Every structure is written in structure tokens, then in C-alpha cells.
């Protein structure tokens, strides 16, 4: 599909994309990865054809990032690619703007198809639409009949302009500007691994069992998992033996589309920060779950979120700030993020939810995986996604210690759930090389 005339040759960055591109460094990029593990080995030729057919339908993903005088901007990338690559052990490697790296990458390994996206392009909700459509086109290439339902877009149709709208700007009309200033949280950092290392540990749990366990505590699956993660970090902080313990807080991205109607595929998220203050006393798991449950219910409201969006967007419209050249602006934003941005939360926890596909595709996909790339500081991030009866939970980070994920999965086991764990950590070597490892 050729780019249509109405399709713009460049785009403004949205509010979230500005932050992700400003804090970009040579050894850090805000990237995430979605993978689908199929029931059959992947055919790379078919997959490359599927990529070539699918991407023109998603012009917002076929862009390069360029530095303007005042702001970065996206420019349409009419060059070839992205080219399908063999998968690597250390996913989510940084994107280098100056090397004109692609902002989206595709990998395959045995039965796994993976897609890595630079967060400035889209949030998980938008990227999943592309990934779902790509899988559908791939399966059609493999000879299966897959309908365009359950959010799969028709790649023969031209792209719709509203798919590339800046939804933040559209809803930034609250009378109140609400900032999300929060107190400093426990940092949960550890020993940094050498550059180019991303330790990934995945756990697989039955959705049915998990749902029953969460329901037993009167919570949703997301609240239940977030509470167990909070408890794991609280235990870690206690073990470090600080005289004064800091609050433990999670940054949990919320998809805004159900609250503010929009079909945008770009970023449209905000974070809520459920938090536990151990200085108030010891919390049982049930108490943490209750705290998370009520925090989510209290703060995920349309009115409050609109006020936060308005505040965030208003910052980018202040004229003196707009007139500052982009290198200075990026430096200031990077410094601001370093000092204040990552202070109010201990780690990130995201759950894009259930990956729903047409019935015809269900039997061809075994499970889904999600990996959050490296964090700004050496800490571990947590993400979860479910498909069918398999809930996949990933801990990924550039930190050497594995104590957070160990405590997390042990808690699930203590709760009576069957957990299968796999990892790319060096220590977890196949048995034929085990003799060389201490």
C-alpha cells in the first residue's frame, strides 16, 4: 500500500513521547516487547511478507525520529524495512537516534514471534493492535482463514487519521490542573549488570487458578499481582535493614481509552501509584490487597485523570518553554526525570490484560509474552499478559539480584498456584554447559 496523499509526512510527538525521547540516552531507551509463542515453528519468509503487508496500514509505526530546533518530531520513513531478525538473548537493546535505528523491530525464534517498540511511538494498547493484525496477516500467509474481528485491522483499507491523533491534547480541557507529585519511594535498585545485559525471568500461571486466588481475596487479578509485588519489595527493603523505611510504590500504567473514547494507536496512558508505607506498621497480604484495590478505585476516575492530562499537556504549551531549543529542553527534562521522575515509585507493574483474538487464531497461538525493557535506573520491572488459560508474568531489568522475582513467585506458590519459571539469566545455563559454571 502506497502512502496516501492525506497522510502527513511528519507528526508532532505526544505528551508521553516527548518525555521518552528526552530521557533517551546512548545506553537507555524506553522499549517494550510483545511476543506470541505459536503452536508451530515460525516461517521467516511468511513473517517478513506479513510485516511488509501490515506496516503500511500503520503509518504511525513507520517513522523516524528527527530533532527539530525546538522539539523532536516523527518523519515518515519511506525506506525499506523493518527487516525480520533472528531473536537475541538480550532483548530491548537501546535505539540510537543518531544511527537512524528503526523505532520498531521484529524477531523470530523457533515458535516465537516478537515485536519491540520504542515507547514514544505507542503504548501497549496501540502496539497490541498492530501485533494482533500482524499475527492475523502472518497466519493468512500460512494458509489459515482469519477474519478481521477482535480488534484486527483490515490491511487492505487505508489508515484512518484518528488512529494517529494526539488524544492527550484532545482531552486536556479540565478546569483543574492536577499534578501527580508524590513522596519519594524506596528505589528498589540493585547491582547493575554490564551494558547490553537484560535479565528476563518469566513465570507462567493458570489464569483460572489465579482468578480464583484473586477472587478469594476480593480483588481483580491486576490488583492481586500488584499487591504481591508490593509485598515482595517490602520484604526486600526490610531485609536491607534500613533504620527508616520508605514507602513502596508501584507505577501502574492505565489505558485511558475506556475512559476517554479514542481509537488512537499512539500513547494514551497515565500511571496510578498504589503505595504502602511500612513506617505505619506491618501489612498482611490481605491488607496490601485491600490498599491496592481501594487506591485503584479511588484514583482511576475520569475527572481526576483528565485534570492530570491537562496539567501535563499545559506544560508543553508554556511559550517561554516552547522557545527553548530542544537540546536545552532535553537536558532539563532528563535532569528533571533523574531527580524527580523516577523517585516516586519503586518499580513499574503493567498488565495489558487479555489478548483476545478470533476463534480461528486461538488454536494457533500457545501463549503470549510481554517484556518491559530496561529501566532508567538499575531496577527490575514487572509486566503480565494473559492468553487463553496462561498468564505470563515477566520480570526484566539490568539488575543482577533476583530477589524481587524470587519472593514474588514463592508467594504465588505459597498461595497454592502452580508456577513454571524460565529465564535468560547466565546462571540458568543448559545442562551441557553447567559444568563450567560455579
Amino acid at each position, binding site marked *: 500500500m502506497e502512502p496516501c496523499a492525506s497522510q502527513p509526512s511528519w507528526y508532532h510527538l505526544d505528551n508521553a513521547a516527548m518525555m521518552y525521547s528526552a530521557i533517551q540516552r*546512548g545506553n537507555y531507551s524506553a522499549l517494550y516487547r510483545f511476543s506470541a509463542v505459536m503452536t508451530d515453528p515460525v516461517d521467516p519468509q511468511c513473517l517478513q511478507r506479513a510485516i511488509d503487508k501490515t506496516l503500511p496500514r500503520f503509518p504511525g509505526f513507520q517513522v523516524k525520529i528527527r530533532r527539530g530546533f525546538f522539539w523532536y518530531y516523527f518523519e515518515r520513513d519511506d525506506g525499506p524495512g523493518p527487516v525480520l531478525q*533472528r*531473536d*537475541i*538473548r*538480550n532483548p530491548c*537493546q*537501546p*535505539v*540510537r537516534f*543518531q*544511527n537512524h*535505528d528503526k523505532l520498531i523491530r521484529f524477531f523470530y*525464534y*523457533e515458535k516465537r514471534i516478537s515485536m519491540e517498540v520504542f515507547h514514544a511511538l505507542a503504548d501497549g494498547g496501540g502496539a497490541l493492535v498492530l501485533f494482533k493484525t500482524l499475527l492475523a496477516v502472518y497466519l493468512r500467509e500460512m494458509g489459515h482463514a482469519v477474519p478481521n474481528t477482535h480488534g484486527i485491522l483490515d490491511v487492505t483499507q487505508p489508515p484512518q487519521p484518528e488512529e494517529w491523533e494526539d488524544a492527550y491534547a484532545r482531552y486536556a480541557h479540565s478546569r483543574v490542573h492536577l499534578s501527580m507529585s508524590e513522596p519519594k519511594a524506596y528505589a528498589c535498585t540493585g547491582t547493575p549488570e554490564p551494558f*547490553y545485559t537484560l535479565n*528476563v*525471568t518469566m*513465570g507462567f500461571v493458570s489464569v483460572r487458578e489465579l482468578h480464583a486466588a484473586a477472587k478469594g481475596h476480593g480483588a481483580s487479578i491486576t490488583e492481586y499481582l500488584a499487591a504481591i509485588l508490593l509485598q515482595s519489595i517490602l520484604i526486600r527493603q526490610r531485609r536491607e*535493614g*534500613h*533504620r527508616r523505611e520508605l514507602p513502596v510504590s508501584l507505577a501502574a500504567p492505565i489505558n485511558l481509552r475506556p475512559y476517554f473514547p479514542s481509537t488512537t494507536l499512539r500513547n494514551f496512558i497515565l500511571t496510578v501509584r498504589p503505595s504502602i508505607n511500612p513506617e505505619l506498621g506491618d501489612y498482611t497480604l490481605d491488607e496490601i490487597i485491600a490498599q491496592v484495590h481501594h487506591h485503584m478505585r479511588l484514583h482511576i476516575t475520569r475527572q481526576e485523570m483528565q485534570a492530570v492530562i491537562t496539567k501535563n499537556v499545559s506544560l508543553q504549551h508554556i511559550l517561554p518553554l516552547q522557545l527553548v531549543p530542544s537540546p536545552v529542553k532535553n537536558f532539563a527534562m532528563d535532569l528533571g526525570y533523574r531527580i524527580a521522575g523516577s523517585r516516586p515509585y519503586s518499580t513499574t507493574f503493567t498488565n495489558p490484560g487479555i489478548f483476545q483474538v478470533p476463534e480461528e487464531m486461538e488454536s494457533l497461538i500457545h501463549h503470549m509474552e510481554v517484556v518491559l525493557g530496561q529501566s532508567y535506573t538499575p531496577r527490575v520491572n514487572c509486566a503480565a499478559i494473559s492468553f487463553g488459560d496462561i498468564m505470563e508474568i515477566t520480570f526484566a531489568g539490568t539488575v543482577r539480584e*533476583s530477589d524481587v*522475582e*524470587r519472593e514474588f*513467585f*514463592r508467594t504465588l*506458590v*505459597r498461595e497454592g498456584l*502452580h*508456577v*513454571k*519459571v*524460565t*529465564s*535468560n*539469566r547466565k*546462571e*540458568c*545455563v*543448559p*545442562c*551441557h*554447559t*553447567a559444568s563450567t*559454571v560455579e
Partner: protein
Amino acid sequence: MSYCVNCGVELDRDAAACPLCQTPVINPVCPPDPQAIPNFPMERQEVEPVDHRELAILLSAMTVCTGVCCGLLNFVLWRGVPWSLFVVGACAVLWVWLVPPLLLRRAPSAVLLLLDLLAVGGLLVLIGTVLQGSVWLSGIALPVWAGFSLILLTIWMAAKNRSFLSRAMLILGGLALFLVWLEFIIDRFLGTYRPMWSLIAAAVAVTLMLPLAVVRTRPNLRRQVRRRFHF
């Protein structure tokens, strides 16, 4: 399939140890299967290193342009005091400070620091020569520069892979030494050496170093301090 005896989680068929607690898998009934396809690929990838040459070229062009323009203005339009030599010297120092770190990525940091200090020394010699100030140049400027360079280079090399406390002690010690040297050079330039203010400053620095040294050498105390002052 095997389960970790510590964590209770099911492991991969090829896992030799639990990825969560590193407990080795010793299961005579179901030993780790070396033929099983690993869940993650074995190949690693490293992104292309950042190319700093373009930035180096840009910075070189900027410094050369500034130097040449000032030189032309000075020697063509306003002949007289060769003020442009100061600008050229400052541009050369700026170039040495900015460009070699971009191009010599693998050079030891001490070598780059030495280059930076030599550039400053060169600028001092240039200023002294242009202003015909050989007295103050040899009497005060170069000795102060030499002492400062020597102390800074020593601290730089000695502080590598040292703890925060050791570094703080080194910096305080270096500062004390430099102040004593500075007073010596100034007094010698002015006439007679009468040590006074530098000894007071050095005494303060040594007084600060002593508790740091005690904390550094006593592990229990160090743990207590880390616990109480963590941030």
C-alpha cells in the same frame, strides 16, 4: 520436569539451576535434558556504538572558525595588541577538552586529563609570552599549575575503584596539600615563606579525614553509618 526444592516452581527441561535462587537441579528421575531447545536464543547482540566523529568534526569546525575569524579581525582590521592570540589559545584549550574524549574513547581517563592539564599549561605560557610576563609566569603561574596538575593526576589515578569514603579522604588530603603548596609559592614569590592560613586549612582537612579513616577501617561502624545515612 523438575521443581526447585527451595522455590517450589517448575523449571525448564534444560535448566541446570533454578533461575530464582540458583539451586542446582539434581533429579535422578528426570535429569536436565541437554537436547531440549532452550527457551531463549543463545546469541547476544550489541547495538552499534555511538559515532562521535560527527560531533567532533562540528566542535573542531566551531573552534577553528572562532580562532581564524578573531585572528583575521585582529591582524587585518585592528592591528596592535595581539588579543586574538588569547582567543586562539582558549579555543585550543576548549578543543583539547572536548574533542579527544570523543575520538579517543578507549584512552585511559588519566591520559585525557593529562592532555587537559597540558593544554591549560600551554595557555598560561602563551599568555605569559604575549604579555612578556616571564616573572609571574615562572614565579607563580607555572609552579601553581604544576602542583595542581600533579596532585589532581595522583588523586585521579588513586581514586579509581575506591570506596566513597576513600575518595573523600583522598580529595581532602589533596586539597590540604595543594593549599600548603599554594601558600608556599605565593610567599616565595612575595619574599619570605611564613606558613599560616594554609596550615589551618590543612589541619581542618586532616581533622575531617581522621573520622572518615576510622569509619573506613571499622566494618561494623561502616555498616552502622551506611544504615543511618542511607538515601
